[in-house]
Every structure is written in structure tokens, then in C-alpha cells.
């Protein structure tokens, strides 16, 4: 199984008396797209932090290309080929859109895509000279995806990429990711069901820090238990 990029085994994390995550397994193969969903407080962002190595699990292990990435400095994790898009759009407001992408490219060990191509990929071709701080919310999210692409990642981790987007922007983002699918692995944490439906990929459902269900999205969507959790019946 040499095409396994990221493998999380039996991951658990405890904050004081709170068991935030328990016995989670996730295998991401090369160039695979998968989603992690779950209601608020299910531990999605915590799990993502564990996957990127910013949080060390109290039990279990996370291996990226066979290496333990837990506790590495941020810039080293980036250079391993893990790109991350934060939940709150975190672009550089005082730099132009173009400079934002340049800064991202400069950080990469071997950038491939030129800035012009990145601008087109994230639909910001006509905003290159705009200060990133002046972009609309959805455009900031896209710029951040573009910055993540600039470092030519092996794995792109997206934390609620569509938070605060209009339904149209959400669908456009899903299409953007579907176009990129097959170039590298993508793990998206989301709670907007429309977005996950549009991606229609392998999905892991978290509830109270545990795995509730996992499988292809169409199976998940019809699952009675998942519906109950989302509707707050359990």
C-alpha cells in the first residue's frame, strides 16, 4: 500500500477532563478527496489540527508519508507538502492579491504554477492588484485556497472552506476543488451539507469526538443516524 499519504490510527486527544477525540482512524490515499463532517463541537477542527501536526494526539499516531509530523514547527510541516486553509480567512490584508500568492510561492520548496495560473484557478484574475484586505469574504477564501495551491502540496487540508459563503460561492468552491481533484489529496472539513453533496466523495462523520459513520457520501446522506445527529434528535 505505497499510495497511502496520510494515515491516522486510533487517534485520541484529551484536554484535561474532556475526551475531545476518541479512537479515530483515517487513511488518505494519494490524490484522493475526502470530507470530514459533523455538527458543531464534533471535533472536526481538532482532528484537522492533529492531522497537520499542530496538535499532538494523546494516544494513537498520525503519519504523513511514513513520518511522524507531530510537534514540528509550522514552516517545516508546510515544506513536507501539507498545505492548510484556516477556518477564518487568513490572507495578508496589507499585500495585494498578487503579492499574497507570491509570498506563498516563495515559501514553497519548488513552486511550479506561475502566479497568473494561480489567479485564474481561484477566479481572481481581475483582482491581482487589489489589496487582499479589500476583497469580499468569499474571494478571501478563494485567495487562501490559491495560496495553499502555490506551495504545490501533496495534501491540502481545508477547514470549513465555505464558511460564510453564499450558496453560489459554495458551489463554485466545490467545482474549484473538483477541478483540482487528481492533482493532490484534499481533506475538507465542512458542515455545509450542500458543499459535501456537490463533492460527493468519501466522507467521515464525527459526533462528539467519535466516528459515527464513514463511507461514500450518498450512503451517508441516506443514513438515519446521521440525519438524527444533524437534526439534533440525538
Amino acid at each position, binding site marked *: 500500500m505505497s499510495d497511502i499519504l496520510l494515515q491516522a490510527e486510533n487517534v485520541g486527544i484529551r484536554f484535561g477532563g474532556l475526551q475531545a477525540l476518541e479512537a479515530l482512524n483515517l487513511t488518505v490515499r494519494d490524490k484522493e478527496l475526502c470530507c470530514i463532517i459533523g455538527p458543531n463541537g464534533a471535533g472536526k477542527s481538532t482532528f484537522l489540527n492533529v492531522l497537520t501536526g499542530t496538535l499532538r494526539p494523546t494516544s494513537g499516531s498520525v503519519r504523513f508519508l511514513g513520518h511522524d509530523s507531530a510537534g514540528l514547527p509550522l*514552516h517545516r510541516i*508546510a515544506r513536507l507538502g501539507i498545505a*492548510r486553509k*484556516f477556518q477564518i480567512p487568513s*490572507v*495578508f490584508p496589507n499585500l*495585494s492579491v498578487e503579492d499574497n500568492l507570491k509570498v506563498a510561492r516563495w*515559501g*514553497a520548496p519548488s513552486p511550479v504554477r506561475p502566479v497568473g495560473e494561480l489567479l485564474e484557478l481561484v477566479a481572481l484574475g481581475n483582482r491581482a492588484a487589489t489589496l487582499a484586505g479589500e476583497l469580499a469574504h468569499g474571494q478571501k477564501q478563494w485567495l487562501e485556497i490559491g495560496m495553499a495551491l502555490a*506551495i504545490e502540496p501533496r495534501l491540502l487540508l481545508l477547514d470549513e472552506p465555505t464558511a460564510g459563503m453564499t450558496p453560489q460561492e459554495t458551489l463554485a468552491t466545490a467545482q474549484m476543488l473538483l477541478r483540482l481533484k487528481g492533482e493532490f489529496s484534499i481533506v475538507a472539513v465542512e458542515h455545509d451539507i450542500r458543499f459535501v453533496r456537490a463533492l460527493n466523495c468519501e466522507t467521515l462523520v464525527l459526533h462528539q469526538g467519535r466516528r459515527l459513520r464513514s463511507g461514500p457520501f450518498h450512503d451517508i446522506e441516506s443514513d438515519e443516524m446521521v440525519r438524527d445527529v444533524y437534526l439534533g434528535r440525538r
Partner: protein
Amino acid sequence: MIARDRNWLLIFATCVALAIIYPFFAGGYQLTVIRDALIFGLFAASLDFFWGRTGILCFGHAAFFGIGGYIMALVTLNDAIPFGSLLGIMGAVAGAAFVAAIIGYFLFFGGIRGSYFTIVTLAMGVICQQAAVSWSSVTGGDSGLIGIPPIEFDLGGLHVDLSQDLPSYIFVSAIVAMTVLALWLISRGRWGTVLTAIQDNEIRAAALGHNAPLRLLVTFVLSAAIAGLAGALYVCMAGLVAPDLSGLLLSTEVIVWVAVGGRGTLLGPVLGAIFIQRAQQTISSFNPSLWPLLLGCVFVIIVFVLPDGILSIYARLKGLFKGRRRAQ
């Protein structure tokens, strides 16, 4: 952006032209006054290179000025050392850079930023001044060291002797112009852009693969090295070195020069230093104790009302009128 670069170069060229014509109109004494003000201008530019690009305020920058000054004095006053002026300048630059590297390493890699950095560097400045006072066998204590010879060296067949007013003015002006231009080129290029990114969001920059603490450290060391150079030049022109040169008052003054001249412009702080020292001389001639009081007030006003410097009044007025027009 491009228009802004052109404006900067235009102002820079104007200043250089003024510096070139000035000796034709000014006497020896006036030349030395401007020369000394220019050295402090270089010092202000060094602080601006760090503060303006990283947004982190160093409140003990005079420590590096003083370290440079003392090293220069000790090297040139020691007859056993050949090529005193050149070695002294190199030692001053290296010494200031070394101290900055050690202090900066622990602060930047330890995650110290913002006001905490300011407070620690404030303490560093006070320690340096205290060391200069107490270590009197080397530093001469409170009265400092006197009789530092003017800069004199041979470089590739060129004999440089700065004991006269005009050559020293030309030498200092050329160094200030070249350094400011070099710092500007660094700031507007890739280095400066990444620093702006780090200032905006350091964690994000790190997540993109940038080693933010290292970049901040190198910027800080470069800034300190130039402050050390300014200190070395100053003590040779003044002929003496004293603990005040690494003291809190000078650290505060340099912040005011940068703030008044416009943080992040590099050229503004040089002009700010010249104009404020001019004002200081005029005001001190009425009453010597008036100046520190006034300086303190200006500092507080700038921090509260104009955090982006006096030049930002223009930008604010422009914004105000734009807003009015839009409202109508």
C-alpha cells in the same frame, strides 16, 4: 505601487541634490551640524528598517548605537591596533550585530512579539547604559572617553582623511545615501514583502513555509549593524563617547524621529531626525530643560493621535475629503 516607488525615488534624488549643493552655500560649522544630524538620520533609518517593516518596536535601539560607538572608540584609541579606523568601523558593525543576534535569537525564537519585545529591549537599553557607566576601567565611566581621532584610512590607493569639515560631510552624506537606498531596495523587494506578510499574520506566513523567526532575526541584526555603524561614525566626528549614547533618551528620540518622519518610508526618518534636531537646538537655546518635556509630549501625542507619523495627516485629510465627496 509603481507610482509610489517613482515618488520615493524622486524625493530621494531631490534630497541627494540638496545635499550636493549645500556645501556651496554653507560654512564649515553649518556643514558639521548637518553632518551630525545626518548620522542620527542614518540611525533613525536603521530603526525604521526594523520597526517599519515588522511593526515591532525596539525601545532600546540606542544600545546598538552606543555599542558601535564604544567599540570604535576603544579600537581607535588603542595605538597597538593598526588600521584603527577601518577595523574600528568593522568591529562596531560586527559588535552591534552580534549583540542583536544573541538577544534577538532568544526573543524571536521564544515567540516574544509586540509590547513584550518593546519592554525587553527597553530593559536592554538601560542595561547597556548602566554597563557603560559602571565599567569605568574600560568605558571611562560617566565621563566617557575623549580624544577619539577622526576617521583616516587608505583604501585601494585612495587616502581618506576626515579631519576636515567638507570631506567628513561628503563621506557621511554618501554613506547615508547609499545605506538608505540599499535598505529601500531590500524593503520593496521579496524580503520586505515577506516581512509585511509576517507582520500581517505570522502564523499564516509560517504555514506557507516561511521561517518567520529567522527572517525577523536577520532583519533585526541588519538594523542593529547599521545603528552600530552610525554610532561609530558619530563618535569619530564628535571626538568623544559617553554613556548617553546608549541611553533611554536617545532611544526615545530616535523613535520620535521615525514617527515624525513617517514609519516605513526610510527617507522620512532621516528628514525627521534633521528637522527635530534643528528644533531642539532652537528650543534649547531658550531654556535647556524645555526640550525633554516637549519631546515627551510629542511622543505621547504621536502614539495616541498619529500612530503612522506626521505624514499620515496628509493621507487622512485626503481620505476625509474623499469620504465627504462620496457622501454628497
